[in-house]
Protein backbone atom coordinates (compact mmCIF):
# COMPACT_ATOMS: atom_id res chain seq x y z
CA UNK A 1 0.00 0.00 0.00
CA UNK A 2 1.15 3.53 -0.72
CA UNK A 3 1.59 5.54 2.49
CA UNK A 4 2.74 8.82 0.96
CA UNK A 5 2.53 10.08 -2.61
CA UNK A 6 4.19 13.38 -3.41
CA UNK A 7 3.59 14.88 -6.81
CA UNK A 8 5.65 17.80 -8.19
CA UNK A 9 5.89 19.20 -4.70
CA UNK A 10 7.50 22.56 -3.91
CA UNK A 11 7.85 23.84 -0.37
CA UNK A 12 9.77 26.40 1.65
CA UNK A 13 9.60 29.22 4.16
CA UNK A 14 8.67 32.86 3.61
CA UNK A 15 9.30 32.90 -0.10
CA UNK A 16 12.53 30.88 0.04
CA UNK A 17 11.98 27.66 -1.87
CA UNK A 18 13.68 24.72 -0.20
CA UNK A 19 12.17 21.70 -1.94
CA UNK A 20 11.99 21.65 -5.73
CA UNK A 21 9.64 19.51 -7.72
CA UNK A 22 9.70 16.42 -5.50
CA UNK A 23 7.85 13.40 -6.85
CA UNK A 24 8.02 10.42 -4.55
CA UNK A 25 6.10 7.38 -3.36
CA UNK A 26 6.70 5.90 0.09
CA UNK A 27 5.24 2.43 0.54
CA UNK A 28 4.01 0.62 3.58
CA UNK A 29 6.90 -1.22 5.22
CA UNK A 30 9.63 1.04 3.82
CA UNK A 31 12.59 1.73 6.07
CA UNK A 32 13.58 4.95 4.38
CA UNK A 33 16.75 6.82 5.21
CA UNK A 34 17.10 10.37 3.95
CA UNK A 35 20.66 11.62 3.57
CA UNK A 36 22.29 14.65 2.00
CA UNK A 37 24.41 17.69 2.88
CA UNK A 38 23.30 20.33 5.39
CA UNK A 39 20.66 22.61 3.95
CA UNK A 40 19.57 20.10 1.30
CA UNK A 41 15.98 20.14 2.60
CA UNK A 42 15.91 16.89 4.60
CA UNK A 43 14.12 18.35 7.62
CA UNK A 44 11.80 20.31 5.37
CA UNK A 45 10.79 17.11 3.62
CA UNK A 46 9.95 15.58 7.01
CA UNK A 47 7.93 18.66 7.91
CA UNK A 48 5.95 18.27 4.71
CA UNK A 49 5.30 14.59 5.44
CA UNK A 50 4.15 15.36 9.00
CA UNK A 51 1.96 18.23 7.75
CA UNK A 52 3.93 20.85 9.67
CA UNK A 53 4.38 23.03 6.62
CA UNK A 54 2.05 23.33 3.66
CA UNK A 55 3.57 22.91 0.21
CA UNK A 56 3.54 26.00 -2.00
CA UNK A 57 2.56 23.85 -4.95
CA UNK A 58 2.15 20.20 -5.85
CA UNK A 59 0.27 17.61 -3.89
CA UNK A 60 0.86 15.30 -0.97
CA UNK A 61 -1.42 12.33 -0.47
CA UNK A 62 -1.46 10.22 2.69
CA UNK A 63 -3.13 6.81 2.34
CA UNK A 64 -5.14 7.87 -0.65
CA UNK A 65 -6.41 11.26 0.57
CA UNK A 66 -4.84 14.72 0.48
CA UNK A 67 -3.00 15.19 3.77
CA UNK A 68 -4.78 18.51 4.35
CA UNK A 69 -8.13 16.73 4.40
CA UNK A 70 -7.28 14.85 7.61
CA UNK A 71 -8.05 16.24 11.02
CA UNK A 72 -4.94 16.78 13.13
CA UNK A 73 -6.08 14.17 15.60
CA UNK A 74 -6.59 11.58 12.86
CA UNK A 75 -3.08 12.20 11.54
CA UNK A 76 -1.65 12.06 15.04
CA UNK A 77 -3.21 8.64 15.56
CA UNK A 78 -1.33 7.29 12.55
CA UNK A 79 1.90 9.29 12.24
CA UNK A 80 4.31 9.67 15.15
CA UNK A 81 7.06 12.26 14.81
CA UNK A 82 10.30 12.48 16.79
CA UNK A 83 11.84 15.90 16.29
CA UNK A 84 15.47 16.77 16.70
CA UNK A 85 14.80 18.27 20.13
CA UNK A 86 12.02 19.33 22.46
CA UNK A 87 11.28 23.03 22.65
CA UNK A 88 10.79 22.91 26.40
CA UNK A 89 11.35 20.22 29.01
CA UNK A 90 9.10 20.04 32.05
CA UNK A 91 9.85 17.89 35.10
CA UNK A 92 7.48 15.09 33.99
CA UNK A 93 8.27 11.54 35.00
CA UNK A 94 9.10 9.20 32.14
CA UNK A 95 5.77 7.42 32.61
CA UNK A 96 3.73 10.64 32.53
CA UNK A 97 5.68 11.83 29.50
CA UNK A 98 4.96 8.61 27.62
CA UNK A 99 1.28 9.00 28.40
CA UNK A 100 1.26 12.21 26.36
CA UNK A 101 1.76 9.94 23.36
CA UNK A 102 -1.71 8.53 24.05
CA UNK A 103 -3.27 12.00 23.76
CA UNK A 104 -4.65 11.60 20.21
CA UNK A 105 -6.29 8.29 21.19
CA UNK A 106 -8.01 9.50 24.33
CA UNK A 107 -11.40 11.00 25.03
CA UNK A 108 -11.52 14.55 26.39
CA UNK A 109 -11.66 13.59 30.07
CA UNK A 110 -9.87 10.27 29.88
CA UNK A 111 -6.69 10.10 31.93
CA UNK A 112 -5.56 6.54 31.40
CA UNK A 113 -7.46 3.58 29.99
CA UNK A 114 -6.42 -0.02 30.28
CA UNK A 115 -5.26 0.14 26.68
CA UNK A 116 -3.17 3.26 27.37
CA UNK A 117 -1.48 1.54 30.25
CA UNK A 118 -0.57 -1.59 28.32
CA UNK A 119 0.63 0.45 25.36
CA UNK A 120 2.91 2.51 27.62
CA UNK A 121 4.28 -0.56 29.39
CA UNK A 122 4.86 -2.33 26.11
CA UNK A 123 6.75 0.66 24.71
CA UNK A 124 8.90 0.86 27.84
CA UNK A 125 9.70 -2.85 27.67
CA UNK A 126 10.58 -2.70 24.02
CA UNK A 127 12.94 0.25 24.48
CA UNK A 128 14.38 -1.11 27.73
CA UNK A 129 13.43 1.88 29.86
CA UNK A 130 11.15 0.22 32.43
CA UNK A 131 13.66 1.08 35.16
CA UNK A 132 13.42 4.78 34.26
CA UNK A 133 9.62 4.89 34.72
CA UNK A 134 9.64 7.20 37.75
CA UNK A 135 12.65 9.32 36.82
CA UNK A 136 12.18 12.94 35.72
CA UNK A 137 12.91 13.35 32.02
CA UNK A 138 15.06 16.43 32.69
CA UNK A 139 17.46 14.35 34.78
CA UNK A 140 18.15 11.70 32.12
CA UNK A 141 21.26 11.46 29.97
CA UNK A 142 21.02 12.38 26.31
CA UNK A 143 20.87 8.73 25.28
CA UNK A 144 18.22 7.81 27.83
CA UNK A 145 16.09 10.80 26.90
CA UNK A 146 16.23 9.92 23.23
CA UNK A 147 15.14 6.38 24.09
CA UNK A 148 12.21 7.84 26.06
CA UNK A 149 11.18 9.93 23.07
CA UNK A 150 11.31 6.89 20.80
CA UNK A 151 9.17 5.03 23.36
CA UNK A 152 6.68 7.89 23.37
CA UNK A 153 6.35 7.73 19.60
CA UNK A 154 5.54 4.02 19.97
CA UNK A 155 2.68 4.77 22.37
CA UNK A 156 1.38 7.21 19.77
CA UNK A 157 1.60 5.16 16.58
CA UNK A 158 3.44 2.19 15.19
CA UNK A 159 2.06 2.66 11.72
CA UNK A 160 4.26 5.46 10.47
CA UNK A 161 7.17 6.83 12.48
CA UNK A 162 9.06 9.89 11.25
CA UNK A 163 12.35 10.76 12.92
CA UNK A 164 14.66 13.73 12.40
CA UNK A 165 18.26 12.79 13.15
CA UNK A 166 17.40 10.42 16.01
CA UNK A 167 20.98 9.34 16.70
CA UNK A 168 22.97 12.52 16.11
CA UNK A 169 24.94 13.37 19.30
CA UNK A 170 24.55 9.85 20.72
CA UNK A 171 27.36 7.41 21.48
CA UNK A 172 27.62 4.24 19.37
CA UNK A 173 25.98 2.12 22.04
CA UNK A 174 22.82 4.25 22.22
CA UNK A 175 22.85 4.77 18.45
CA UNK A 176 22.88 1.08 17.74
CA UNK A 177 20.20 0.40 20.36
CA UNK A 178 17.87 2.94 18.78
CA UNK A 179 18.55 1.71 15.25
CA UNK A 180 17.97 -1.90 16.37
CA UNK A 181 14.59 -0.92 17.81
CA UNK A 182 13.63 0.86 14.60
CA UNK A 183 14.72 -2.21 12.63
CA UNK A 184 12.59 -4.48 14.79
CA UNK A 185 9.59 -2.19 14.39
CA UNK A 186 10.08 -2.15 10.64
CA UNK A 187 10.25 -5.95 10.57
CA UNK A 188 6.95 -5.96 12.45
CA UNK A 189 5.36 -3.78 9.78
CA UNK A 190 6.01 -0.16 10.75
CA UNK A 191 6.90 2.31 8.04
CA UNK A 192 9.97 4.21 9.21
CA UNK A 193 11.14 7.46 7.64
CA UNK A 194 14.25 8.98 9.14
CA UNK A 195 16.83 11.63 8.37
CA UNK A 196 20.33 10.42 9.26
CA UNK A 197 23.75 12.01 9.00
CA UNK A 198 25.66 8.78 9.44
CA UNK A 199 25.72 7.28 5.95
CA UNK A 200 27.08 3.93 7.09
CA UNK A 201 24.37 3.42 9.70
CA UNK A 202 21.82 4.35 7.06
CA UNK A 203 23.31 1.74 4.78
CA UNK A 204 23.30 -1.00 7.44
CA UNK A 205 19.69 -0.51 8.46
CA UNK A 206 17.58 1.12 5.75
CA UNK A 207 16.01 -0.77 2.90
CA UNK A 208 15.83 2.38 0.84
CA UNK A 209 17.91 5.56 0.77
CA UNK A 210 17.08 8.93 -0.73
CA UNK A 211 19.90 11.40 -1.30
CA UNK A 212 18.66 15.01 -1.32
CA UNK A 213 20.76 17.69 -2.97
CA UNK A 214 19.74 21.35 -3.14
CA UNK A 215 16.11 20.51 -2.51
CA UNK A 216 15.74 17.83 -5.17
CA UNK A 217 15.94 14.06 -5.12
CA UNK A 218 19.43 13.24 -6.38
CA UNK A 219 19.34 9.44 -5.91
CA UNK A 220 16.71 7.01 -4.65
CA UNK A 221 17.07 3.25 -4.23
CA UNK A 222 18.45 0.43 -2.11
CA UNK A 223 21.80 1.09 -0.35
CA UNK A 224 23.75 -0.92 -2.93
CA UNK A 225 22.57 1.33 -5.77
CA UNK A 226 22.70 4.64 -3.95
CA UNK A 227 25.98 4.39 -2.07
CA UNK A 228 28.49 4.29 -4.89
CA UNK A 229 31.48 6.60 -4.74
CA UNK A 230 30.28 8.30 -7.94
CA UNK A 231 26.96 9.24 -6.29
CA UNK A 232 28.35 10.21 -2.90
CA UNK A 233 31.18 12.33 -4.29
CA UNK A 234 28.72 14.43 -6.25
CA UNK A 235 26.08 14.47 -3.50
CA UNK A 236 28.45 15.74 -0.82
CA UNK A 237 31.10 17.27 -3.07
CA UNK A 238 33.67 15.17 -1.19
CA UNK A 239 36.16 12.54 -2.33
CA UNK A 240 35.17 9.12 -0.96
CA UNK A 241 35.93 5.43 -1.18
CA UNK A 242 33.31 2.72 -0.71
CA UNK A 243 33.88 -0.72 0.87
CA UNK A 244 31.54 -3.48 1.92
CA UNK A 245 30.71 -4.04 5.57
CA UNK A 246 31.98 -7.60 6.12
CA UNK A 247 29.01 -8.48 8.35
CA UNK A 248 26.01 -6.71 6.84
CA UNK A 249 27.39 -6.86 3.27
CA UNK A 250 26.20 -3.27 2.87
CA UNK A 251 28.31 -0.55 1.25
CA UNK A 252 30.24 1.69 3.66
CA UNK A 253 31.46 5.15 2.72
CA UNK A 254 34.77 6.62 3.87
CA UNK A 255 35.63 10.23 3.05
CA UNK A 256 39.26 10.69 2.04
CA UNK A 257 41.28 13.17 4.15
CA UNK A 258 43.21 15.87 2.27
CA UNK A 259 46.63 14.68 3.55
CA UNK A 260 46.33 11.26 1.88
CA UNK A 261 44.77 12.51 -1.34
CA UNK A 262 48.03 12.79 -3.40
Amino acid at each position, binding site marked *: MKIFELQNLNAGYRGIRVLHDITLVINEGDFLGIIGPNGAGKSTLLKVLSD*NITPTSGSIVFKGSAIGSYRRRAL*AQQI*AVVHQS*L*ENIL*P*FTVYDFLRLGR*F*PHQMLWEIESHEDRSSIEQAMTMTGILHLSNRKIGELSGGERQMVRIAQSLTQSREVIILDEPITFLDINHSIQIMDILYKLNQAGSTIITVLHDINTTSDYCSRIIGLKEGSIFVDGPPEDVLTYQNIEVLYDTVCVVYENPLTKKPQVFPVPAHVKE
Partner: protein
Amino acid sequence: MKGKIFFTALILITGIILVLSLSMGTTFISPSKLLALLTDGEDTVEYLIIMKLRLPRTVMALLVGAALSVSGVLFQALMKNPLAEPYTIGISGGAALGATIAVVSGLDYFYIALFAFISCTLTVLLVYTLSIRRGFGPTSLILTGIALSFILSSGVLLIFAMTRAQQVHKALLWLMGDLSLARYKTLGLMAAILPLIIAASLFYFKHLDVISFGDTFAKNLGVTRRDNRNIFWIASLLAAISVSMAGIIGFVGLIVPHVMRFLFGPIHLKLIIASAVGGAVLLVLCDLVGRTIAPPYQIPVGIVTGFIGGIFFLSLLITRGDRVQ
Protein backbone atom coordinates in the same frame (compact mmCIF):
# COMPACT_ATOMS: atom_id res chain seq x y z
CA MET B 1 0.28 10.69 48.40
CA LYS B 2 2.41 13.77 49.06
CA GLY B 3 0.03 15.69 46.82
CA LYS B 4 -2.99 14.60 48.87
CA ILE B 5 -1.43 15.81 52.11
CA PHE B 6 -0.55 19.16 50.55
CA PHE B 7 -4.04 19.51 49.14
CA THR B 8 -5.72 18.71 52.47
CA ALA B 9 -3.44 21.25 54.13
CA LEU B 10 -4.34 23.79 51.46
CA ILE B 11 -8.07 23.29 52.03
CA LEU B 12 -7.63 23.56 55.82
CA ILE B 13 -5.67 26.79 55.49
CA THR B 14 -8.34 28.13 53.17
CA GLY B 15 -11.02 27.43 55.79
CA ILE B 16 -9.07 29.14 58.56
CA ILE B 17 -8.28 32.18 56.47
CA LEU B 18 -11.90 32.51 55.33
CA VAL B 19 -13.11 32.60 58.93
CA LEU B 20 -10.40 35.10 59.87
CA SER B 21 -11.30 37.24 56.89
CA LEU B 22 -14.89 37.50 58.13
CA SER B 23 -14.02 38.14 61.76
CA MET B 24 -11.10 40.52 61.49
CA GLY B 25 -11.20 44.19 60.56
CA THR B 26 -11.90 47.51 62.23
CA THR B 27 -14.48 45.76 64.39
CA PHE B 28 -13.38 42.34 65.62
CA ILE B 29 -16.12 39.72 65.58
CA SER B 30 -14.96 36.47 67.16
CA PRO B 31 -15.29 33.33 65.03
CA SER B 32 -17.57 31.75 67.64
CA LYS B 33 -19.90 34.71 67.38
CA LEU B 34 -20.00 34.49 63.57
CA LEU B 35 -22.32 31.52 63.47
CA ALA B 36 -24.66 32.94 66.07
CA LEU B 37 -24.86 36.17 64.11
CA LEU B 38 -25.65 34.46 60.87
CA THR B 39 -28.49 32.44 62.39
CA ASP B 40 -30.22 35.09 64.44
CA GLY B 41 -28.61 38.48 64.53
CA GLU B 42 -30.06 40.10 61.49
CA ASP B 43 -30.62 43.53 62.98
CA THR B 44 -27.21 44.00 64.57
CA VAL B 45 -24.46 46.22 63.21
CA GLU B 46 -22.09 43.27 63.17
CA TYR B 47 -24.43 41.37 60.90
CA LEU B 48 -24.47 44.28 58.48
CA ILE B 49 -20.69 44.57 58.56
CA ILE B 50 -20.30 40.93 57.72
CA MET B 51 -23.01 40.62 55.11
CA LYS B 52 -22.62 43.98 53.36
CA LEU B 53 -18.88 44.55 53.60
CA ARG B 54 -16.74 41.59 54.56
CA LEU B 55 -18.56 38.77 52.81
CA PRO B 56 -18.72 40.36 49.34
CA ARG B 57 -15.14 41.50 49.72
CA THR B 58 -14.00 38.02 50.67
CA VAL B 59 -15.94 36.39 47.84
CA MET B 60 -14.48 38.87 45.38
CA ALA B 61 -10.97 38.13 46.65
CA LEU B 62 -11.61 34.40 46.27
CA LEU B 63 -12.86 34.76 42.71
CA VAL B 64 -10.21 37.21 41.54
CA GLY B 65 -7.39 35.24 43.16
CA ALA B 66 -8.53 31.98 41.59
CA ALA B 67 -9.06 33.57 38.17
CA LEU B 68 -5.69 35.35 38.07
CA SER B 69 -3.82 32.21 39.13
CA VAL B 70 -5.51 29.94 36.60
CA SER B 71 -4.94 32.57 33.93
CA GLY B 72 -1.25 32.54 34.88
CA VAL B 73 -1.08 28.75 34.55
CA LEU B 74 -2.59 28.92 31.05
CA PHE B 75 -0.34 31.72 29.84
CA GLN B 76 2.75 29.96 31.18
CA ALA B 77 1.83 26.83 29.22
CA LEU B 78 1.02 28.77 26.05
CA MET B 79 4.24 30.76 26.17
CA LYS B 80 6.42 27.89 27.47
CA ASN B 81 7.69 30.35 30.00
CA PRO B 82 7.24 30.08 33.78
CA LEU B 83 7.64 33.86 34.02
CA ALA B 84 4.70 34.64 31.75
CA GLU B 85 1.55 35.92 33.44
CA PRO B 86 -1.67 37.65 32.43
CA TYR B 87 0.01 41.04 32.45
CA THR B 88 2.80 39.97 30.08
CA ILE B 89 0.50 40.43 27.11
CA GLY B 90 -0.62 43.92 28.12
CA ILE B 91 -3.89 43.13 29.88
CA SER B 92 -2.99 45.36 32.83
CA GLY B 93 -2.00 48.24 30.56
CA GLY B 94 -5.27 48.04 28.67
CA ALA B 95 -7.36 47.91 31.81
CA ALA B 96 -5.39 50.76 33.37
CA LEU B 97 -6.04 53.07 30.44
CA GLY B 98 -9.77 52.33 30.31
CA ALA B 99 -10.20 52.68 34.06
CA THR B 100 -8.18 55.90 34.20
CA ILE B 101 -10.33 57.47 31.51
CA ALA B 102 -13.47 56.52 33.45
CA VAL B 103 -12.10 57.75 36.78
CA VAL B 104 -10.96 61.15 35.51
CA SER B 105 -14.29 61.56 33.75
CA GLY B 106 -15.92 61.18 37.16
CA LEU B 107 -17.82 58.00 36.33
CA ASP B 108 -18.85 55.53 39.03
CA TYR B 109 -17.60 52.04 39.80
CA PHE B 110 -19.77 50.23 37.27
CA TYR B 111 -18.46 52.35 34.41
CA ILE B 112 -14.88 52.12 35.62
CA ALA B 113 -15.13 48.35 35.45
CA LEU B 114 -16.87 48.48 32.10
CA PHE B 115 -14.32 50.85 30.56
CA ALA B 116 -11.47 48.77 31.95
CA PHE B 117 -12.98 45.60 30.54
CA ILE B 118 -13.60 47.04 27.08
CA SER B 119 -10.19 48.60 26.91
CA CYS B 120 -8.32 45.48 27.96
CA THR B 121 -10.37 43.25 25.68
CA LEU B 122 -9.43 45.54 22.80
CA THR B 123 -5.80 45.29 23.87
CA VAL B 124 -5.94 41.50 23.93
CA LEU B 125 -7.63 41.53 20.54
CA LEU B 126 -4.84 43.70 19.17
CA VAL B 127 -2.11 41.48 20.67
CA TYR B 128 -3.92 38.46 19.25
CA THR B 129 -4.27 39.87 15.72
CA LEU B 130 -0.74 41.21 15.59
CA SER B 131 0.90 38.04 16.85
CA ILE B 132 -1.21 35.72 14.74
CA ARG B 133 0.38 37.35 11.69
CA ARG B 134 3.68 36.04 13.01
CA GLY B 135 2.49 32.52 13.78
CA PHE B 136 1.06 33.13 17.27
CA GLY B 137 4.24 31.90 18.92
CA PRO B 138 5.36 32.78 22.45
CA THR B 139 7.93 35.32 21.30
CA SER B 140 5.51 37.25 19.15
CA LEU B 141 2.93 37.28 21.95
CA ILE B 142 5.40 38.55 24.53
CA LEU B 143 6.98 41.15 22.26
CA THR B 144 3.64 42.54 21.08
CA GLY B 145 2.40 42.57 24.67
CA ILE B 146 5.43 44.48 25.93
CA ALA B 147 5.31 47.02 23.11
CA LEU B 148 1.61 47.67 23.70
CA SER B 149 2.12 47.89 27.48
CA PHE B 150 4.58 50.74 26.99
CA ILE B 151 2.20 52.63 24.74
CA LEU B 152 -0.74 52.11 27.09
CA SER B 153 1.10 53.10 30.25
CA SER B 154 2.36 56.22 28.50
CA GLY B 155 -1.27 56.94 27.70
CA VAL B 156 -2.18 56.61 31.38
CA LEU B 157 0.65 58.94 32.40
CA LEU B 158 -0.38 61.41 29.71
CA ILE B 159 -3.88 61.55 31.19
CA PHE B 160 -2.42 61.99 34.68
CA ALA B 161 -0.31 64.90 33.45
CA MET B 162 -3.44 66.69 32.29
CA THR B 163 -5.69 65.97 35.28
CA ARG B 164 -6.24 67.48 38.75
CA ALA B 165 -4.37 65.79 41.58
CA GLN B 166 -7.50 64.58 43.39
CA GLN B 167 -8.69 62.57 40.41
CA VAL B 168 -5.21 61.22 39.85
CA HIS B 169 -5.16 59.91 43.41
CA LYS B 170 -8.46 58.16 42.88
CA ALA B 171 -7.22 56.55 39.70
CA LEU B 172 -3.97 55.52 41.37
CA LEU B 173 -5.87 53.74 44.13
CA TRP B 174 -7.70 51.75 41.48
CA LEU B 175 -4.47 50.94 39.69
CA MET B 176 -3.03 49.52 42.90
CA GLY B 177 -5.72 46.85 43.01
CA ASP B 178 -8.62 47.58 45.31
CA LEU B 179 -11.21 45.21 46.69
CA SER B 180 -12.96 47.77 48.91
CA LEU B 181 -15.57 48.50 46.25
CA ALA B 182 -16.91 44.96 46.17
CA ARG B 183 -20.71 44.98 46.28
CA TYR B 184 -23.26 42.33 45.45
CA LYS B 185 -24.52 44.06 42.34
CA THR B 186 -21.33 43.62 40.34
CA LEU B 187 -20.22 40.56 42.25
CA GLY B 188 -23.18 38.52 41.06
CA LEU B 189 -22.10 38.69 37.47
CA MET B 190 -18.55 37.74 38.34
CA ALA B 191 -19.59 34.90 40.59
CA ALA B 192 -21.58 33.48 37.71
CA ILE B 193 -19.01 33.90 34.95
CA LEU B 194 -15.57 33.33 36.47
CA PRO B 195 -16.20 29.81 37.84
CA LEU B 196 -17.61 28.85 34.45
CA ILE B 197 -14.51 30.04 32.64
CA ILE B 198 -12.25 28.31 35.16
CA ALA B 199 -14.22 25.13 34.54
CA ALA B 200 -13.79 25.63 30.80
CA SER B 201 -10.03 25.73 31.27
CA LEU B 202 -10.25 22.24 32.77
CA PHE B 203 -11.43 20.94 29.39
CA TYR B 204 -7.92 21.61 28.15
CA PHE B 205 -5.94 20.03 30.95
CA LYS B 206 -4.29 17.46 28.67
CA HIS B 207 -3.79 19.93 25.82
CA LEU B 208 -1.89 22.13 28.26
CA ASP B 209 0.45 19.29 29.23
CA VAL B 210 1.20 18.65 25.58
CA ILE B 211 1.50 22.33 24.60
CA SER B 212 4.02 22.96 27.39
CA PHE B 213 6.58 20.85 25.57
CA GLY B 214 6.45 22.91 22.38
CA ASP B 215 4.18 23.92 19.53
CA THR B 216 5.42 21.44 16.93
CA PHE B 217 5.39 18.67 19.50
CA ALA B 218 1.77 19.54 20.34
CA LYS B 219 0.77 19.79 16.71
CA ASN B 220 2.05 16.31 15.97
CA LEU B 221 0.03 14.95 18.86
CA GLY B 222 -3.13 16.44 17.43
CA VAL B 223 -3.45 19.83 19.13
CA THR B 224 -4.95 22.30 16.69
CA ARG B 225 -4.50 26.04 16.28
CA ARG B 226 -8.05 26.45 17.44
CA ASP B 227 -7.22 24.71 20.75
CA ASN B 228 -4.39 27.20 21.22
CA ARG B 229 -6.65 30.13 20.49
CA ASN B 230 -9.37 28.90 22.83
CA ILE B 231 -6.87 28.56 25.65
CA PHE B 232 -5.57 32.04 24.90
CA TRP B 233 -9.06 33.53 25.13
CA ILE B 234 -9.96 31.63 28.29
CA ALA B 235 -6.79 32.91 29.95
CA SER B 236 -7.36 36.45 28.69
CA LEU B 237 -10.99 36.62 29.77
CA LEU B 238 -10.17 35.38 33.26
CA ALA B 239 -7.58 38.10 33.67
CA ALA B 240 -9.63 40.81 31.96
CA ILE B 241 -12.71 40.27 34.13
CA SER B 242 -10.63 40.14 37.31
CA VAL B 243 -8.64 43.25 36.51
CA SER B 244 -11.71 45.20 35.49
CA MET B 245 -13.44 44.44 38.78
CA ALA B 246 -10.55 44.63 41.19
CA GLY B 247 -7.83 46.72 39.62
CA ILE B 248 -4.30 45.67 38.88
CA ILE B 249 -3.34 43.01 41.38
CA GLY B 250 0.14 41.88 40.45
CA PHE B 251 2.18 38.80 41.17
CA VAL B 252 -0.73 36.42 41.95
CA GLY B 253 -0.74 34.99 38.43
CA LEU B 254 2.99 34.42 38.68
CA ILE B 255 3.64 33.31 42.22
CA VAL B 256 0.71 30.94 42.79
CA PRO B 257 1.27 28.66 39.78
CA HIS B 258 4.93 28.65 40.66
CA VAL B 259 4.38 27.43 44.22
CA MET B 260 1.70 24.96 43.15
CA ARG B 261 3.99 23.51 40.50
CA PHE B 262 6.55 22.99 43.22
CA LEU B 263 4.04 21.31 45.54
CA PHE B 264 1.89 19.36 43.09
CA GLY B 265 4.09 18.88 40.02
CA PRO B 266 3.74 20.04 36.43
CA ILE B 267 0.64 18.09 35.36
CA HIS B 268 -2.07 20.58 34.52
CA LEU B 269 -5.14 18.84 35.92
CA LYS B 270 -3.73 19.11 39.42
CA LEU B 271 -2.00 22.39 38.70
CA ILE B 272 -5.18 24.18 37.61
CA ILE B 273 -7.23 23.00 40.56
CA ALA B 274 -4.48 23.67 43.09
CA SER B 275 -3.77 27.10 41.61
CA ALA B 276 -7.44 28.07 41.73
CA VAL B 277 -7.64 27.18 45.43
CA GLY B 278 -4.19 28.59 46.23
CA GLY B 279 -4.82 31.84 44.37
CA ALA B 280 -8.18 32.30 46.05
CA VAL B 281 -6.78 31.84 49.53
CA LEU B 282 -3.68 33.95 48.87
CA LEU B 283 -5.72 36.93 47.76
CA VAL B 284 -8.08 36.69 50.74
CA LEU B 285 -5.04 36.56 53.00
CA CYS B 286 -3.37 39.53 51.32
CA ASP B 287 -6.55 41.56 51.54
CA LEU B 288 -6.91 40.63 55.19
CA VAL B 289 -3.38 41.82 55.84
CA GLY B 290 -4.02 44.99 53.85
CA ARG B 291 -7.06 46.05 55.80
CA THR B 292 -5.85 45.11 59.29
CA ILE B 293 -2.14 45.86 59.36
CA ALA B 294 -2.21 49.66 59.59
CA PRO B 295 -5.57 50.96 60.84
CA PRO B 296 -7.19 53.33 60.13
CA TYR B 297 -5.65 53.03 56.66
CA GLN B 298 -6.71 50.30 54.29
CA ILE B 299 -3.78 49.29 52.17
CA PRO B 300 -4.82 48.29 48.62
CA VAL B 301 -4.41 44.57 48.12
CA GLY B 302 -2.19 45.05 45.06
CA ILE B 303 0.48 46.61 47.24
CA VAL B 304 0.37 43.69 49.66
CA THR B 305 0.62 41.08 46.88
CA GLY B 306 3.50 43.06 45.40
CA PHE B 307 5.41 43.02 48.69
CA ILE B 308 4.61 39.46 49.70
CA GLY B 309 5.00 38.09 46.17
CA GLY B 310 8.26 39.89 45.51
CA ILE B 311 9.88 38.95 48.80
CA PHE B 312 8.67 35.36 48.53
CA PHE B 313 9.96 35.07 45.00
CA LEU B 314 13.36 36.45 45.93
CA SER B 315 13.72 34.10 48.88
CA LEU B 316 12.76 31.18 46.67
CA LEU B 317 15.40 32.20 44.16
CA ILE B 318 18.05 32.53 46.85
CA THR B 319 17.30 29.33 48.77
CA ARG B 320 16.51 27.04 45.87
CA GLY B 321 19.09 28.48 43.50
CA ASP B 322 18.91 27.20 39.97
CA ARG B 323 16.28 24.59 40.79
CA VAL B 324 13.62 27.26 40.42
CA GLN B 325 12.16 26.75 36.99
